[in-house]
C-alpha cells in the first residue's frame, strides 16, 4: 500500500456499546490503515469536525440504539455542508433492512449488520477507495450490497 488510508470510526448518539466499533477499528488497523477512534456518545457536529481536522478519507458510523435513521443522515448532511462531499461513509450495527434504502439515499455507501465477515469490510474499503466519486455528496448512487 502506498499510503495508509485515514479512517474515522465514530459512535454517534446515546449508545454505550462499542465492541463492534472496536472490532472494525482493529480490523482496519490490522489491514494497515490509520484509524482515528472518537470514543462514545459523539454528536453529528463533533464527528464531522473530527473528519475535517483529521483529513479522513472514510467515516465509519456505528449505532446499536435504533437512532440510526435520524443520526446517520444528519452526519451526511453536515459533511456536505462543511464541504466534505468526497468523504466515503459506511455504517454498521443493528440496522434493519427496511431502514437501509433511506440511508443509502442519504449518501451512505455500505451498511454492515451483525455477522459480517471482517474481510467483507476490507473489500468494500478497497473497492470504494478505487472509485473517485463514491463520496457522501458526490453524484454516484452506487452502494455496496452486504450479505449480513
Amino acid at each position, binding site marked *: 500500500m502506498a499510503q*495508509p488510508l485515514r479512517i474515522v470510526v465514530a459512535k454517534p448518539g446515546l449508545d454505550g456499546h462499542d465492541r463492534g466499533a472496536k472490532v472494525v477499528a482493529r480490523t482496519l488497523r490490522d489491514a494497515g490503515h490509520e484509524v482515528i477512534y472518537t470514543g462514545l456518545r459523539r454528536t453529528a457536529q463533533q464527528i464531522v469536525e473530527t473528519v475535517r481536522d483529521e483529513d479522513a478519507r472514510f467515516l465509519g458510523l456505528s449505532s446499536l440504539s435504533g437512532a440510526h435513521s435520524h443520526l446517520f443522515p444528519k452526519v451526511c448532511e453536515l459533511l456536505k455542508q462543511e464541504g466534505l462531499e468526497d468523504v466515503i461513509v459506511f455504517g454498521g450495527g443493528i440496522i434493519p433492512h427496511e431502514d437501509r434504502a433511506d440511508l443509502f439515499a442519504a449518501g451512505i455507501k455500505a451498511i454492515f449488520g451483525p455477522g459480517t465477515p471482517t474481510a467483507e469490510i476490507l473489500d468494500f474499503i478497497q473497492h470504494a477507495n478505487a472509485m473517485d466519486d463514491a463520496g457522501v455528496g458526490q453524484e454516484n448512487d452506487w452502494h455496496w450490497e452486504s450479505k449480513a
Partner: protein
Amino acid sequence: MNDEISRALNGERRALARVLSAIENRTVSIEEMSGSDSSSTEDIMWSTMAITGAPGVGKSVLVDALMTLWAKQGHRIALLAVDPSSPRTGGALLGDRVRMTSVDNPAIKDQVYVRSIATRTASGSVPLIVEDMASFLHSCGWNRVLIETVGSGQSELRCAAVADRIVVVEGPARGDGIQAEKAGLLELADAVLVNKADLDGAKKHASELQESFALGQNEAPPVLLTSGLQGIGIEQAAEMLFELKASDRATKARMRERLLARHERRLVNHPSYNECLKRLTEGTIDIENALSILQGEHDE
C-alpha cells in the same frame, strides 16, 4: 495544492488538514511553499513544545486540560498527537482524541486544532516530519504547537530534535530515589510535571526529583504536581509552561539529537532507501555497502 495552501494560510481548517496530510505523505515539501514563512511576528517564549513521558502517565488528559485553559485565555493552540504504527502491518489506532474534550467545547473549539499522527516508518517517539507539520501550523497562525509523543521510555530523546521545549510527565510510584538519579530523558527536561497528584506516592516522587536536580551543577527545571483528571495544579502549570525558558543544561544533547535526526531523515528520504532495504533483506549487499550508497549525494 497551491490553492489549498493559500486557503489553509487564510484559516480554512479543511485545507489545513489537507496540506498537513500532503506534508506527512511527502507529496509537498515545506521548502517549496511560497509565502509560508514560519517565523512568528509575535514575541513568544516558544512555539513548539513536546509533552513526553511513559505510557499511561496521563499525557493526553493533561494536555487537554492545558489546552482548555490556554484557549479560554484567548490563545490558539494546536496539538499534534502521536501514536505508534504497527511494525507488522503499518496500521495504527490513533486514540488520543478520545480524551480530548477541548475540541468538543463550543466555547473554545475554534481556538484548538488536534491532529492525530502515526509514527509510520520513524524510529523513536516522534516522526521527524512533525517538525514540518508544526512549521506549517505556525505559518497558519497557530503560534503555539504542542507535540504529544508516543508513550516513551527513559532514553527516548528524539523529541528534542523537533521541539523548542521538552516537558516530561511523570506519575506517582515510578520507582525509588535511584530512578530519579538515572541519566536519560529527565536530563533534557525544561520542566517536569508529576501527574496523578491525587494518588499516593506523587508528592514523594516529586521531591525525589527535586532533590536529584538540586545535586546537579546547573539550574534545576521546575517540578510541579498536577492532576489532569482532577484539575489539580493545572492553572499553575499552564502559567509556568506558557513562559517556560529553555533549560541551559542540555544544549549539546539537543544539538546531538537534531544532528542525528537530520541524518536519519536524509537516509530515509534517499531515493535508494527502499532498494537498499530490499537488497539487505535478500543478502545481496551488507550494511556497509548500503551506507555508502545512502550517504552519496542526492537532492532531498
